[in-house]
């Protein structure tokens, strides 16, 4: 599936929920399915700055696609990372760079998008895109 298709799938899933509580419960569930980063990559270098909780992200190239793994010490943050990784993992770096992140808005997580928000969703997106740019340069 393309990033666009995955994002539409996520939007459809979240549209079934009536209130924040169901959305949060689903996010907590998604957090549990997050492809976990290997312990050896849980280094200070891989911590995303700007988050109140710790978030580690690692990226690896598999053929021409970028695969992300991650973890967080906070459960809700883990859910947010899981949503991002579901949308962006196993995609070509060029597609990740070009992708927009409007879907975050549409699944009711807009409040988390504020750059001053403590969970640092903006920093996470930036970090995923930075990895994509780095690997794109390598592929070129």
């Amino acid at each position, binding site marked *: 599936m393309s990033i666009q298709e995955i994002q539409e799938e996520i939007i459809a899933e979240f549209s079934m929920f009536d209130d924040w509580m169901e959305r*949060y419960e689903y996010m*907590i569930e998604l957090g549990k399915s997050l492809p976990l980063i290997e312990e050896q990559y849980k280094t200070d270098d891989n911590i995303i700055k700007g988050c109140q*909780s*710790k978030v580690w992200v690692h990226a690896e190239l598999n053929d021409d696609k970028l695969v992300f793994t991650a973890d967080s010490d*906070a459960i*809700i*943050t883990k859910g947010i990372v899981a949503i991002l990784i579901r949308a962006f993992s196993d995609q070509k770096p060029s597609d990740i760079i070009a992708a927009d992140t409007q879907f975050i808005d549409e699944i009711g997580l807009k409040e988390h998008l504020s750059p001053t928000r*403590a969970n640092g969703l903006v920093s996470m997106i930036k970090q995923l895109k930075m990895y994509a740019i780095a690997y794109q340069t390598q592929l070129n």
Partner: protein
Amino acid sequence: MINTVLDILSVRKDFPILNRKVHGQPLVYLDNAATSQTPTMVIDAIVDYYKRYNSNIHRGVHTLSQEATDVYEEARQKIQKHFNARKSHEIIFTPGTTFGINLVANGFASLLQAGDEIIVSALEHHSNIVPWQMLTERTGAVLRVIPMDVEGELVMEEYHKLLSDKTKLVFCNHVSNALGTINPIEEIISAAHKVGAAVLLDGAQAAPHIKADVQQLDVDFYVVSGHKMCGPTGVGVLYGKEEWLNKLPPYQGGGEMIAEVTFEKTTYAALPHKFEAGTPNIAGGIAFGAALDYMNNIGFDAISRYEHELLTYATEQLLTIEGLKIYGTSSNKTAVISFNIEGLHPYDIGSILDKLGIAVRTGHHCAQPIMDFYKIPGTVRASFSFYNTKDEIDVLVAGVKRAKSMLI
């Protein structure tokens, strides 16, 4: 049980913000240690200033300037009276506590020599650590730290051991922002004075709850912020003993702080203007005065008695939640509860409480050394004010339980 003499429902009517809803729920504001809410009479003082006599102070020949100067200086006198300073020019208006600390730290740079010692406590806010580190870098002075124990209290025996004739300054908060511990400041001050050291107390967390008498304490410097005492943001006060303020050099150059200027030499204005360069936050200073009027009208005895009841009730109720641990368990503390639930991140708990309309602070509370001591990433901090109610504590406890059931 809450047996207060305060008429809380009538007090709450003074705070328009308490009527608002957050995520469709009535606001339960428990982040008072960060910023307290503002009563209508304080908001009115700001509006009145801008509507009727907005103008620059201390220099105008015209009526508006005279009026603004009079009201601003009246506010200074109210603050002087509140803290029982000997003279009104011992009250310096600042943009807040952090500025006041930096002003003193900067001033001491010219008084310290390499090898001199500065003592700070392990319970300090970052704003009370970094300026001293910068000062030691500039002067070659050495920083010493009074350790804390597991209850969140300072280990006073260690403090006494740290003091010597090398000690020039002792800096400590009156009340810890992260844990609420009320420090034994009388003992800290008198012991420091015995070795000839000056004492600066950070009163930011104490002043909203405890009326400090600077003469009785015999403290050399005391700093507070308006926004934690029902006043506006961006205004605070540095109290300094006249002899100390005369010894310290000015912090910033500019208008207001000079007596005479030629290109060869400038003579500085007398206190307090020496430390008040440029146009100050006039509306803020005036509103700070109004905020003190408001709080004194309710009375600090009634405030601290009621807040203690809230603290006792909230502590009892929160401890009924399995796995909940409170950090800072001194028997002498203000109405602040820092806690965690076993296995949960404070950020997760705070996020869910926010959705329920409950405002708490999560994180390290600008006091990472304390979090390192407990080996935790941070805490959830609920901090109460005299306008909070027992019902709101019930909402908090129910919210924490709900968060726990969602997260575990």
